[in-house]
């Protein structure tokens, strides 16, 4: 595959956790340039912890996290956020007392001296999610769950980072909203974005990604392609996911 070029994201021997316990052990994963990779696993497997460690929100205890060849392990989140990675986190975590557009513009914090670029990014987010343009001045508390997820994805895109990190963007959404999110992720892939998608829904992961990692109990236990999933891998996956 693309093993010769420097991948956008390379995580090696990552161990981390909370308190006395490591909830993530020896994780290896890579995302190539323009590749979309899924991280599947049951509740409590450690998926969010991996994503937050990449973003710098959880301290890395062991191992390295390379983004475009630069080791990010140990850097504070606000440094990693400067164009390296951006996250649409679990639970969306919008700044609920602020408007949709303010949430989006805050996402472009490190680009604020380049207002032209911020405008362009804002336009491309509104193009991806036209409904957000309509509600741009609305306080984000008053949005539906699907619309809030769109803001979270939009805010992540506003940073124009090397890698996009998405934590279960489909969770607790209506089928219509899931469809909008999936379409948007497919469009991002078409535009050449690199992304790491944490999911519990196999169907979403298979449609969006070209490679799937499976994680259980803090370790990566398997790796598959969508084709393998469709040719009988589904039953194995279902067993992992419980």
């Amino acid at each position, binding site marked *: 595959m693309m093993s010769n070029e420097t991948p956008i994201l390379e995580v090696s021997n990552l161990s981390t956790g909370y308190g006395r316990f490591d909830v993530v052990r020896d994780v290896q994963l890579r995302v190539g340039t323009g590749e979309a990779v899924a991280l599947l696993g049951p509740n409590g497997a450690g998926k969010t912890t991996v994503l937050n460690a990449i973003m*710098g929100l959880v301290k890395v205890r062991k191992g390295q996290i390379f983004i475009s060849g630069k080791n990010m392990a140990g850097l504070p*989140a*606000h440094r990693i*956020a400067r164009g390296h990675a951006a*996250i649409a986190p679990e639970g969306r975590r919008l*700044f609920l007392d*602020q408007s949709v557009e303010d949430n989006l513009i805050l996402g472009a*914090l*490190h680009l604020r001296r380049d207002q032209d670029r911020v405008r362009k990014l804002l336009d491309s987010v509104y193009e991806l999610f036209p409904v957000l343009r309509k509600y741009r001045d609305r306080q984000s508390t008053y949005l539906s769950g699907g619309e809030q997820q769109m803001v979270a994805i939009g805010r992540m895109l506003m*940073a124009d980072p090397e890698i996009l990190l998405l934590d279960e963007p489909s969770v607790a959404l209506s089928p219509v909203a899931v469809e909008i999110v999936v379409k948007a992720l497919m469009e991002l892939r078409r535009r050449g974005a690199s992304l790491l998608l944490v999911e519990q829904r196999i169907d979403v992961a298979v449609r969006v990604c070209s490679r799937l990692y499976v994680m259980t109990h803090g370790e990566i236990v398997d790796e598959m392609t969508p084709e393998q999933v469709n040719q009988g891998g589904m039953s194995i996956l279902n067993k992992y996911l419980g």
Partner: protein
Amino acid sequence: MQFILSGIAIGSIYGLIAMALAITFYVTRTINFAQGQLMMVTVMLTAMLSAAGTPVWLAMIIGLVSSCILGVLSYLIAIRPILQVNRFSFGWLVSTLGFAVILENGAALIWGPTSRSFPQMLISYRVPIGNAVLNGQQVLAIVVAIVLTIAFEVVRRRTFFGKLGMATAVDPDMAEAIGANTTVVAIVAFIVSALFAGIAGLLVGPTTFANPYLGSTFGTFGFIAMMIGGGTEKPVAAMFGGLILGVCAEGANALINSQASDWFPFLVLVIILIISPRGLFSSSSPLMRLRRPPAAKA
């Protein structure tokens, strides 16, 4: 009429200190119990420097800058290390009180425990309003409080930095994840907060004179004002708490007896916290519920 106006004047001072407390609470969820002492430092330095012949304006600026520096130090020494170990720890209760004790005793050691004169500023002007009279300094306090409160709200809501402060207030981790250095945001909050406290000191100095124990009195009233208003939720509410407190205290002096302002405000605080535990202007207050249309039945 007289007690309402002079209540609003002193309430503006309490309100500024209450806002100072609320601004740092807003961003860091901690209360800096050395806030009153920061105000005292501005007052003492301004008094000392102007007595030594420094122009008053320069003395005031040096006084304000010093309290800003001490405000940042109180954060870096007494608050940040504790939050870094555990964001939800209450250790800052003790450490900021300790910081206050050090500042207060340090000031008493340097300047002695007795009051010193403070520049007169506008206090000799008389401003008749209806059948009441305020002095120039009281009018200045009211005007400054109005201007600073409005300025604070405009900056918070309309500027990029204000929005970043709001983001940090609701979710510091997420603010970091969008690239905010939340330590810098907190430091700015402590500078703004020390400025509010220091300005309150300059406004009240000509009345109280310069005394190392000024900080405890005004710090306490500022804290009560913040709680009455609901400043833990939004800083402007603290200003309204200050105005209510000021009018209550002056009213108690005028209508009960001249010592009543020592205990009456505490009574008001207790009653208000029973009615509305998070303050009069908090979103959960019965007062605020009156204004809002009833929620639609789902």
